[in-house]
């Protein structure tokens, strides 16, 4: 393959095709689910808030989509002095 590349520019269409396939697979999945992260965020927060006091501004919910699995990361700060609420 590399030998050929020296003589001719590599065809760019296959690259375009592959980039589009990967991108659109992700976009199609996320368009229908654009509210999913918001919904998860609210419900997760409600559950946590039952037991510990949290600052709603210091919560970060992130969803990353991979080819086979997606990951959901919930990152929140729990202030030390309010941790005793549930007790």
């Amino acid at each position: 393959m590399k030998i050929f590349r020296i003589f001719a520019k590599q065809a760019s269409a296959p690259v375009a095709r592959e980039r589009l396939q990967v991108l659109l697979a992700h976009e199609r999945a996320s368009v229908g689910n654009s509210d999913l992260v918001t919904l998860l965020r609210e419900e997760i927060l409600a559950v946590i808030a039952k037991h510990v006091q949290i600052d709603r501004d210091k919560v970060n919910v992130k969803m990353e989509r991979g080819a086979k699995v997606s990951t959901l990361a919930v990152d929140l700060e729990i202030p030390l002095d309010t941790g005793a609420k549930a007790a």
Partner: protein
Amino acid sequence: MGKVIVVTSGKGGVGKTTSSAALGAALALRGDKVVVVDFDVGLRNLDLVMGAERRVVYDLVNVIQGDAKLSQALIRDKRVETLYLLPASQTRDKDNLTEEGVERVIGALRKAFDWVICDSPAGIERGATLAMRHADVAVVVTNPEVSSVRDSDRIIGLLDAKTAKAERGERVEKHLLLTRYDPNRAERGDMLKVDDVLEILSIPLLGIIPESMDVLRASNVGAPVTLADSRSAPAVAYLDAVRRLTGETVPITIPGEKRSLLGKIFGRRAA
């Protein structure tokens, strides 16, 4: 009751207006009564492409707002007598299109015409969603180029979600119209091939319109490309597309293939 077709794409400059005019004229040439409606309020151009720019008195917004009757706003084509144009307003903006107003106008046109072709503005905002709102059939105009394909994919999603048909649980019939296709560049591997685009978007192919000087030439003189020179490669491609649209089975040909066959031979020699 006529059929409502939306010509849409998401991305601008891919050939929506050219295609609306060409398909409309081709349908009218069959004797069907056709109206082409410009939804690009504020940036109208269908009148110019169809050569009726000096005959616009009233427009779509006037009709929606009750300032003019539909019959006053419709412009009859001077070449094909069953072809009509409903121009967009140039001075107002898209906020003047109301959902009820559009529904009323499309409903009235559907009763009076065999085909109502809605030329959508670019984007996915109000103008574009209203243009597709009442469509039975969608012609998704796409260039073999990454940003156009991505935007078309988005539009296909909207057609399945935001149209009146989708809300009733029905499906808008979707067709792909691949425009500005250059068989030589595709053969060289520098342009997405027909099959690539079809595989990615997975909607049936209505036609392939070759990149051609004839398209520019037709718009220069204000004639739909199917009327300007009905034997030119893009005109033949549009005429075939219309036959498919009306249910005929016409084999898909890649226009300009004869020339590209020569190119193929030379291409192979060079390699």
